[in-house]
C-alpha cells in the first residue's frame, strides 16, 4: 500500500495537470473527484518542519502549492519500516495525498518530487536551508494559498543544492520581503532622497527600509561598504545568478547579515535557525 502512487512519468503528468488548473488556487479545499473519497485531496509541498508526536508519528508543517501551509500527521513515520521512509524530512518537496482534518490533516501517501538530499548532507548547506523554511513558516498563514512563495522556495532550495552559495538564502529573503511589499530603497538616500549616484550611501536603516547617506545616518543604521551596496543592488535587480559564482567576501557576508536582520525586523521575531549559520 506504500509510497508508490503511480509509475514515475505518468505520475509527474498527473500532478502537472492539477498544477495547471489555474482557478484551483482561489477555491477552498475540496475533495478531488479522481480519488472519489470525501475529504481526500492531493497536492505537492515542501516539508518546512517536523515535530515528534507520540511513539512513532510526526506532525509535519508543509507549504503546499495549492492549499497553503498545512499541518499533517504522518503516522508511523519514525519507524524504520515506515511506508513514508525518508521522504518527509525538512527541505523535501513531495507529492502528497491527504485526508482533510479540522486542524491536522492526515497524510495517506507521499512521493518524492525533489528530495533535496544534498541539502541535508552538508552542514553548511543545511544551516543555510533551514532559515528559509523557518521564515516561510512564520510568513505564511494556515490554509492560505501562496503559490508564488511555494515556487520561490522550491527554486531557492534547488539553487542552494546546485550552486552551494551562501548568497541564496539572503537573496531568497529579499525576494520574500519584496513579495510582502517591503522593497529596500538603495538608489537614493531613504531620508533626504539624494540619489546614490551623487552621494554614496553609507548605512542601511531597517526602520526606513533603505540606505542612508552619511549625513542622514548620523551614526545610525548598519554601516555597509560600497561593495556591499553594489552586491545588494545586483541581487535586487536580477543579477543573482552571476553573484552566486563569486567567492564569499566581506561584502557578501554583510549582505547576508543584513538580509537576515531585515527578515527578522519584518517578522518581529528572531529566526532560531539562523543562529547556526
Amino acid at each position, binding site marked *: 500500500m*506504500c*509510497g*508508490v502512487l503511480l509509475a514515475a512519468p505518468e505520475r509527474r503528468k498527473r500532478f502537472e495537470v492539477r498544477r495547471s488548473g489555474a482557478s484551483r488556487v482561489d477555491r477552498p479545499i475540496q475533495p478531488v473527484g479522481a480519488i472519489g473519497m470525501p475529504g481526500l485531496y492531493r497536492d505537492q509541498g515542501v516539508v518546512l*518542519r*517536523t515535530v*515528534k*508526536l*507520540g*511513539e512513532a508519528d510526526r506532525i509535519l508543517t508543509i507549504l503546499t502549492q495549492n492549499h497553503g501551509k498545512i499541518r499533517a500527521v504522518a503516522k508511523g513515520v*519514525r519507524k*524504520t*519500516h515506515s*511506508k*513514508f*521512509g*525518508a*521522504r518527509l*524530512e*525538512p*527541505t*523535501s518537496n513531495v507529492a502528497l495525498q491527504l485526508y482533510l482534518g479540522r486542524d491536522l490533516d492526515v497524510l495517506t501517501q507521499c512521493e*518524492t518530487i525533489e*528530495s533535496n*538530499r544534498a541539502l*541535508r*548532507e*552538508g*552542514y553548511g548547506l*543545511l*544551516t543555510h536551508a*533551514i*532559515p528559509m*523554511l*523557518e521564515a516561510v513558516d512564520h510568513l505564511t498563514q494556515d490554509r492560505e494559498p501562496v503559490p508564488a512563495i511555494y515556487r520561490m522556495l522550491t527554486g531557492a532550495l534547488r539553487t542552494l543544492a546546485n550552486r552551494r552559495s551562501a548568497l541564496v538564502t539572503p537573496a531568497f529573503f529579499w525576494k520574500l520581503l519584496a513579495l510582502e511589499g517591503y522593497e529596500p530603497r538603495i538608489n537614493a538616500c531613504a531620508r533626504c532622497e539624494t540619489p546614490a549616484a551623487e552621494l554614496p550611501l553609507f548605512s542601511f536603516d531597517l526602520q526606513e527600509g533603505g540606505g542612508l547617506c552619511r549625513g542622514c545616518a548620523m551614526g545610525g543604521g548598519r554601516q555597509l561598504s560600497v561593495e556591499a551596496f553594489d552586491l545588494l543592488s545586483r541581487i535586487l535587480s536580477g543579477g543573482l545568478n552571476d553573484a552566486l559564482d563569486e567567492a564569499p567576501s566581506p561584502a557578501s557576508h554583510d549582505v547576508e547579515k543584513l538580509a537576515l536582520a531585515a527578515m527578522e525586523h519584518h517578522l518581529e521575531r528572531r529566526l*532560531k*535557525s*539562523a*543562529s*547556526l549559520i
Partner: protein
Amino acid sequence: MASYEGSVQRLIDEFGRLPGIGPKSAQRIAFHLLKLPKEDAHRLADVIVEVKAKVVWCKRCFNIAESDLCSYCADERREAHLVCVVEEPKDIVAIERTAEYRGKYHVLQGAISPIEGIGPEQLRVRELITRISGEGITEVIIATNPNIEGEATAMYLANLLKPAGLVVSRIASGLPVGGDLEYADEVTLGRAMSGRREL
C-alpha cells in the same frame, strides 16, 4: 475546564507535563492509579523516588549510571580506543542488542537541531573532545539518528574530528533487512546505493 479535588488535579497536572501525554491521557492515567491497590501505587512512587536518588549521568560518557561511571565505561574488557557517539542513552540499549559492538560510548544528550536553534554547545560535544585527547581514542563511530537533526550532528562532528586525524565513520543507512527493494523510498535507496560496499 472544570477541575478535580486538590490532589487528584495535581496528579493530572503532573502527568500532563510528561512528554507525549495530553490532558485526556493524563486524566486517564490518574484515574487508573486511583483504582490501583495501594501497594501497586506505592511501588510506582517508590521507584520514582529511588531512580531520582540513585541515577546520575555517567561522569565520562553521560549515559545513565548508578555510580560515577556507567557499566560500559567501567567495563575494562571493552575496547577503549573506539567510541560510538549516540544521541540518547536508549540508543546504547538498541546498539547493545545487536551484540556487534565492543567499544565505549558517548551520549550527546540530544542532537543539533537547526530548526530549534540547538547548536553543538548545548550538547556534550566539548566533553567528547576532552575524552578523545585524554583516553587515547582513535576511532569514532557516529550513530546519531538518520533524520535531519542526527545527520546535521554527524556532519558537524565529522568536520570537527576528521582534521584531528581520527578514523570517523557513520553507521550505514539503507534498506531494512527482509524488505523488498521496490518498496524502498528514493532517499533511502539512494543512500543505500551511494553507501554500497564491495563484496
